[in-house]
């Protein structure tokens, strides 16, 4: 992000603040698990589920994969699966944090490839 920071200091300052808020606004272990899946998918690295995942973690990972692949085809059942383990407000916060982490990673990957 260093080059982006030089080119767009206001935007990157606000993005970094948003990333910081996102990381503390939801379960950090769950977010880390999903961030790892995001990274693997965006960089086209093979991945598999860690052993011993709880149903909650499995539901959130499945949702993350769908979110990364195509948000327009998220199913009602995928949100319902999240709601089995959290309140609507917690699900809302998690998806907000996921948006920030996922899109920031996308921008980081592409900008590093196209901006010298």
């Amino acid at each position: 992000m260093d080059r982006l920071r030089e080119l767009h200091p206001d935007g990157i300052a606000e993005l970094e603040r948003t990333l910081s808020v996102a990381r503390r606004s939801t379960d950090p272990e769950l977010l880390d698990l999903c961030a790892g899946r995001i990274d693997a998918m965006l960089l086209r690295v093979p991945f598999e589920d860690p052993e011993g995942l709880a149903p909650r973690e499995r539901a959130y990972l499945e949702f993350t994969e769908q979110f990364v692949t195509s948000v327009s085809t998220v199913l009602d059942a995928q949100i319902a699966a999240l709601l089995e383990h959290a309140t609507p407000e917690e699900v809302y916060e998690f998806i907000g944090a996921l948006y920030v982490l996922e899109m920031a990673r996308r921008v980081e990957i592409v900008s590093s490839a196209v901006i010298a």
Partner: protein
Amino acid sequence: MSEPVPRITLAGSDGGFLLGNELDEAITAFAAAAVRADAVDPMTTELVRLRCAQVHDCRLCGSLRSSDALELGLDERMTAQIARYETSDFDAAAIAALRLCDAIILAPASADPELAAELHRHFSDAQIAELCLDVMKWSHQKMLVALRLEAPPWQETTVLSFDENGDPVIGGPVDEHRTGR
């Protein structure tokens, strides 16, 4: 096909799209900072915004048209071409910007020196950086689309502008804007 309905009900919502928590406020501040940058022409910015709306299937964003782009001649013939921009009559700079947009939202690992060279034929580094952050800002809708909270409260295609702080201002119907009513 029936319209999607909200997948959650938020206890603290004021009836708008957002809950208004600390993360929402941080995202809004980031979005405003992205919008305040103005090195890219408004037409290109609007084509990229509408491309994000299409790919993410955001009904709210798809219902809006930038007032600045309308002043520059944006019309529905152009917006219809965004989905097939590779065969459109958009200029080369607009097509490069849309390819950058697609690289970010569809396949980041596909970004390569060829795309970089194409972008640099039309844009400065600062403009490319602005476009990258614009795509992130225009993808906030992913959160709303996942929960199907993004239905617009209006029926007509509606004018969008931003105030000096970068906060959105919703105007009236585009048809009235075009006829000067």
